C-alpha cells in the first residue's frame, strides 16, 4: 500500500549527516519505512501510473510491443498495459534471469519487449543476461525498473544505489533517468522509437508533475536548461531535478541564482550541452543525482569536464558510498543530503 509521506523536512541524524548539510526546518520525525512511498509533496500535482498509461497508448499503434514482468506488474505500473492488452502481457514469474533472456528471445523474433522489475533485481541479479543476451546483441529490449536509487525505505535489498554505475559500464545500452510524470510519458515514447536496448529508471504510482511548468520536451540524448542562473549550475537527473528546482527557488530568495540543467539521458550523455553550460565561467558546478556518488551522473560529468580541459569548482549531491539505512524516505533523504533543504544547505556551504 502506498504511504504518502512529506519529503525533505527532517533534520539530519547526528553522526550520519553530511558535514556540509545546512539549516533545516524541524518537523516530527516519520518512523515508517514504507516500501513504496510517493515522492509527491502534499498538494503537489501528480499523475497516476504515467509509464503504464503511456505504454498502453503507444501499444495501440505498435502491435509489436509486448510487456513482460517478473511478478512486479503492480509495482512497475505495467498492470495498466496488462489490463488493456492481456494477450500481449507475459507474466514470467519471480525469475529475473528468465525475464531478461525471454525478452531477448522475443526481440529476436521481431517483437518490442518492455521488461519490468525493480532496479536492484535488473542490475544485480540479471546483469549477465542483460549484458550478453540483450546488450551485446543490440536487441531491441526496453528494461524499465522501479525503485531507483533511494526511493524505498526497505534498505539495501531494494535500494538500487548502484544501478547507474553498473549500467553505464555496459556497451550498447542507453540509460535514462526521467524526472517526473511528464518526462516518463515522453521518455516511454522516445525509447520505443529508439532502435536498441534501453534501461529506464521509473517512478511509479502517483508521480509528481513538475516539468509542465517549463519549456520542456524529453529528447533522448539531450539535456535541457530548465532555468538559468549566474552563481551555480546544477546538472541533475531523475527526481533530483525536481529537488534542484525546489532548491533553486529557495536559494533565489537568499539572492543565490541557480541554473538547472536536466540531463535525463545518462548515457549517451549530452556532452555538448553540458560543456556549453560549464564553460560559462565562474559558476559552481553541482551534479545532483539519486545514486551513489560512485559511477553515476556526477562522475560522468566530471569526466567530460576533465577530458575537455574545463576546470570548475565541482561538487556532488548524491548518495554516499555505503549501504544505506532503512527508514522513512524523508528521514533518509535528509540524512543522506538529497532533500531540497539539505541541498540548499550544501550549496550555501560550498559558496561560503
Amino acid at each position, binding site marked *: 500500500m502506498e504511504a504518502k509521506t512529506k519529503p525533505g523536512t527532517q533534520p539530519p541524524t547526528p553522526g550520519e549527516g553530511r558535514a556540509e548539510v545546512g539549516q533545516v526546518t524541524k518537523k516530527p520525525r516519520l518512523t515508517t519505512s514504507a516500501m513504496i512511498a510517493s515522492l509527491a509533496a502534499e498538494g503537489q500535482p501528480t499523475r497516476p501510473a504515467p509509464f503504464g498509461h503511456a505504454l498502453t497508448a503507444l501499444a495501440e499503434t505498435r502491435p509489436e510491443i509486448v510487456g513482460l514482468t517478473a511478478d512486479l506488474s503492480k509495482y512497475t505500473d505495467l498492470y495498466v498495459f496488462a489490463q488493456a492488452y492481456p494477450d500481449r502481457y507475459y507474466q514470467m514469474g519471480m525469475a529475473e*534471469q*528468465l525475464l531478461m*533472456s525471454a525478452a531477448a*528471445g522475443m526481440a*529476436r523474433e521481431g517483437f518490442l519487449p518492455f521488461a519490468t522489475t525493480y532496479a536492484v533485481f535488473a542490475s544485480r541479479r540479471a546483469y549477465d543476461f542483460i549484458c*550478453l*543476451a540483450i546488450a551485446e*546483441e543490440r536487441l531491441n529490449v526496453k528494461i524499465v525498473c522501479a525503485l531507483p536509487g533511494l526511493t524505498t525505505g526497505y534498505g539495501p535489498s531494494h535500494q538500487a544505489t548502484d544501478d547507474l554505475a553498473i549500467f553505464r559500464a555496459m556497451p550498447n545500452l542507453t540509460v535514462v533517468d526521467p524526472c517526473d510524470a511528464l518526462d516518463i510519458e515522453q521518455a516511454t515514447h522516445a525509447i520505443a522509437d529508439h532502435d536498441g536496448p534501453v534501461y529506464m529508471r521509473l517512478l511509479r504510482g502517483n508521480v509528481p508533475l513538475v516539468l509542465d511548468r517549463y519549456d520542456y520536451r524529453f529528447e533522448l540524448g539531450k539535456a535541457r536548461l530548465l532555468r538559468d542562473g549566474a552563481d551555480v549550475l546544477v546538472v541533475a537527473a531523475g527526481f533530483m531535478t525536481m529537488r534542484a528546482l525546489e532548491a533553486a527557488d529557495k536559494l533565489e530568495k537568499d539572492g543565490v541564482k541557480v541554473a538547472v540543467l536536466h540531463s535525463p539521458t545518462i548515457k549517451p550523455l549530452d556532452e555538448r550541452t553540458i560543456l556549453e553550460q560549464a564553460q560559462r565561467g565562474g559558476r559552481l558546478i553541482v551534479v545532483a543525482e539519486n545514486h551513489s556518488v560512485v559511477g553515476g551522473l556526477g562522475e560522468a560529468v566530471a569526466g567530460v569536464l576533465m577530458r575537455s580541459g574545463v576546470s570548475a569548482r565541482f561538487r556532488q549531491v548524491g548518495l554516499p558510498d555505503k549501504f544505506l539505512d532503512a527508514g522513512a524516505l524523508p528521514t533518509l533523504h535528509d540524512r543522506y543530503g538529497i532533500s531540497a533543504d539539505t541541498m540548499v544547505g550544501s550549496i550555501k556551504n560550498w559558496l561560503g
Partner: protein
Amino acid sequence: MATTHSGTAELSNVNLVDRAFRIRRNALRMGAVQGQGYIAQALGVADVLAVAYFHALRYRPDDPEWEERDRFCLSIGHYAIALYSVLIEAGVIPENELETYGTDDSRLPMSGMASYTPGMEITGGSLGHGLGISVGMALGLKRKGSKSLVYNLLSDGELDEGSTWEAVQSAPHWQLDNLIAIVDVNNQQADGPSRSVLNFEPLHAKWDAFGWHVERVNGNDLDALAAAFDRARGLKEAKPRVIICDTRMAKGVPFLETREMTHFLRVDAHEWDLALEALDAGRVR
C-alpha cells in the same frame, strides 16, 4: 531456388552415418588449425547434430534467416566447433572457412556468437542463457502464429545453473509445444566428471516432474536419435519436449575416447593426423 531441408522424408540412416562422419572430420580439421579446442564434445555430439540438421530441422542453407526455419540455439558456446562442423556440412558455411577457425577476424570464433556466424541463432557461452532465450523465441513464434520449432542444445554441466531451471519451469507453464530441448549428457565438465562435480540425476524424473515430455536415448545411436526426434516432434500434447542424449566424449577416435579429463582435450601436434586416420579407419570398419 532455395533448397529447403525439411524433416523426415529426405534422408536415410545411411546418409546420417555419412553426415556424422563428415561432421567429425570437419571438427578434427578445425581443431588442428588451433591445435586445441573442445574437440571431444564435438566428436561426442556429432550424431545428435547429424540427426538434428539432416533429419529433423527445416532450414535453407543459402538463407540462414529464412523466417520459416526451425531455430537451433546453441546454449553451450564452447560447442561452437561442433556447430560450425554441421553448418559446413549443411552448406550454410563454405567449407574453406574451416581453415580460419579461431583466427583473427574469422566468422568462426572459438565461442559461438550470433553476430559473427551465419546460422548461429544466439550468443551462448555464458552458460545458463540459452534455454531462457529459447523460451522467449518460442513465445514469440507462437505470437506470430508460426509453425517453426525452437531447438536448444544444452549440456549436462549447464544444468548446474539456476537460470536453466527458471526456464525449465517456465516452458510447461506456457505450454510451449514448439520447444525441444536437447541435453548432451557426456558426464564431463571443467573440473571433472559432471556427476561428481554436482550430481544432476535423476534427469528423466526431474524434467518429467517439471512437466516436460522426456526422451532419453543413447546419443551416439543414430536410429535411436531419429526415433526420439520423431516422437518429440510428433507429440500432440501441449508441453515442451526434451531429448536427453547420453553421449561418449571423443566418440569415433578410440585413442581419445579413453583419455581422462576430456573437457578441454590435450591433443599433441602429431596426434591430429592420427586422429583423422583413426576416424577414417572407423568409417571403413
